[in-house]
């Protein structure tokens, strides 16, 4: 893609987010709000929820990468490839199961133990839910590495770990990062459900809007989630560009 294309692509979400947030702040400061609305949309509350939401997203996504990339590597090693359809199949089930069901089931099942707070159960669910894109792209990316290059690396006397770290993974990185971006988007949206098991996040605002029949609060929460999702997607795109090895 041209430099200009990239700049435009990176600029559009920034403009959008500024417009959305600007609109929200303007509405919040000028509209005539009732006491319930004022309490629910208190700045400190919103900030806290946004921070929880980001924590849920980042922690789950990091866990996804830590699990899915090594798993993808193992599944593409010689003699293991027959396992990869099975693993992808399982990850597929994880993703297609209704996330709301998954999160509640896990909570009921695990919450008997004090370790499993709402936050942790949410992270567990989001991690399982987000594994598929990274796993699939790691496998696809590694399989897509030019075989002659891998053989050239062997011919030069690079050991198997060196080949993996210095040739295969760098060359597969763009594809893996595309998977990471998909996971980020998936996770930031799904994290809204954390509210049902007391896991925090901006879902709390939406939920209280529903509970209290305050339409404005519900919409405000939704708008803020959209803005955060745009930011996360933007960060994913930047990561993709920054981490891509030069020359590939």
């Amino acid at each position, binding site marked *: 893609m041209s430099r200009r294309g990239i700049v435009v692509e990176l600029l559009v979400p920034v403009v959008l987010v500024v417009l959305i947030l600007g609109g929200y702040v303007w509405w919040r400061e000028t509209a005539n709000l009732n006491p319930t609305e004022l309490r629910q949309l208190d700045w400190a509350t919103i900030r806290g929820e946004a921070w929880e939401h980001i924590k849920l997203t980042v922690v789950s996504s990091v866990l996804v990468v830590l699990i899915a990339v090594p798993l993808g590597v193992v599944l593409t090693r010689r003699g293991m490839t027959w396992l990869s359809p099975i693993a992808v199949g399982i990850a597929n089930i994880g993703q297609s199961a209704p996330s709301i069901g998954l999160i509640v089931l896990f909570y009921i099942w695990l919450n008997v133990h004090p370790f499993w707070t709402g936050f942790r159960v949410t992270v567990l669910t989001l991690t399982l839910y987000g594994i598929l894109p990274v796993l699939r792209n790691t496998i696809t990316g590694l399989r897509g590495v030019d075989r*002659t*290059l891998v053989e*050239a*690396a062997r*011919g*030069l*006397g690079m050991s198997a770990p060196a080949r993996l770290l210095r040739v295969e993974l*760098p060359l597969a990185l763009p594809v893996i990062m595309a998977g990471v971006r998909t996971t980020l988007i998936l996770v930031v949206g799904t994290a809204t459900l954390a509210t049902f098991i007391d896991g925090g996040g901006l879902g709390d605002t939406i939920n209280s809007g529903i509970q209290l029949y305050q339409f404005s609060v519900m919409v405000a929460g939704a708008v803020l989630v959209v803005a955060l999702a745009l930011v996360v997607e933007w960060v994913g795109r930047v990561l993709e560009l920054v981490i891509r*090895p030069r*020359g590939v």
Partner: protein
Amino acid sequence: MSDTTRPVEATQTQAEPPGASGPGEVSGAEIVLTDVVKRYAGQDAAAVGGLTLTIPAGEIVMFVGPSGCGKTTSLKMINRLIEPTSGTIEIAGKDIRTQSENQLRRQIGYVIQGGSLFPHMTVEKNIAIVPKLLGWDRSRIHDRVTELLDLVGLDPERYRNRHPRELSGGQQQRVGVARGLAADPPVVLMDEPFGAVDPITRQRLQDELLSIQRELHKTIVCVTHDIDEAIKLGDRIVILREGAEVAQYDTPEVVLSAPADDFVADFVGAGSSLKALSLARVEDIELRHPTTAKVGDAVAKVTEQARANGDTAVVVLDDRGRPVGWPWLRQLRGDRIVRPEGELIDVDIRSTLNDALDSMLSSSHGAAVVTGERDQYLGVVDFDAVTTHIRLLEEQRGE
């Protein structure tokens, strides 16, 4: 380039290659294949059915033969990219199975079609791979990369930090050769190294390889399906048929003049008297020595000198004695000789007369500038000299 920076001393401390010796001498190692068989799983016929061959130290041996006859398989067994089903391979008298695969491969250069450079690494990083694996320190690697880029005719400072996709096909291939030579291995394996470039670039790369080999004296095993390339590059040629069965193993001269059987004769092809032109080399011919000038010389003085010699053109050399242009006197402008535009097409002293004729035809001088080691200027070869030489050959043949 002084002898102190020669690569040969470089390997003395680390993983000393068998048979390495001082510069100028043979630094290659002998390779002996004994009854080597490779049978791929699920195939009736063996891809290599009992190959026995001795490849002398310091020579270029070319493997030629029809597609699928087992050239690549035979080559890859030497660096254990493929394990033989049976048989033994020795390098410098040592069975290659006595050390680990990776140890072995770090002592054997490997060059493949198109260069197979790693796209995410710079030219420098690509070349430095094996030295790094051998634990060389950074300044030594840096110096070595400079030296190798110089050797393969790429300006080190201009190219070392580029990525492969910023290079032409021929330049990538040059870097591929440099990478194969990086740790100064006694043995270099090449699989159709110049298969992916255009004919003119291929000819230059071949010339450069010959020039490098004249300096380094490696043992080079090179696979090709181009018989002309085999004749040009090979000290010896192995002609293989199906199952890597040796049809003939001899010098190019003998293969051309006395093919072992119909298969070889067919493979070598018709027009073998013309092919004989690929046997005679520029070095067999007397060179002409027209007036030369250095970049920066006074034009007036050069012109005067050329007129006195009866020349209408001068060969311009750079400060390192490499030819950079061959302008006619009327093209000389200004006070000082400047570096001419465009690239001068020159031929290596070891080039075949075939290649020299090619270059002459594309030059307005009806002659070609001849270079030796590291592109040093040697003289000029022209049509007359070549035709005289052909006549001489014909006469000898007639007798």
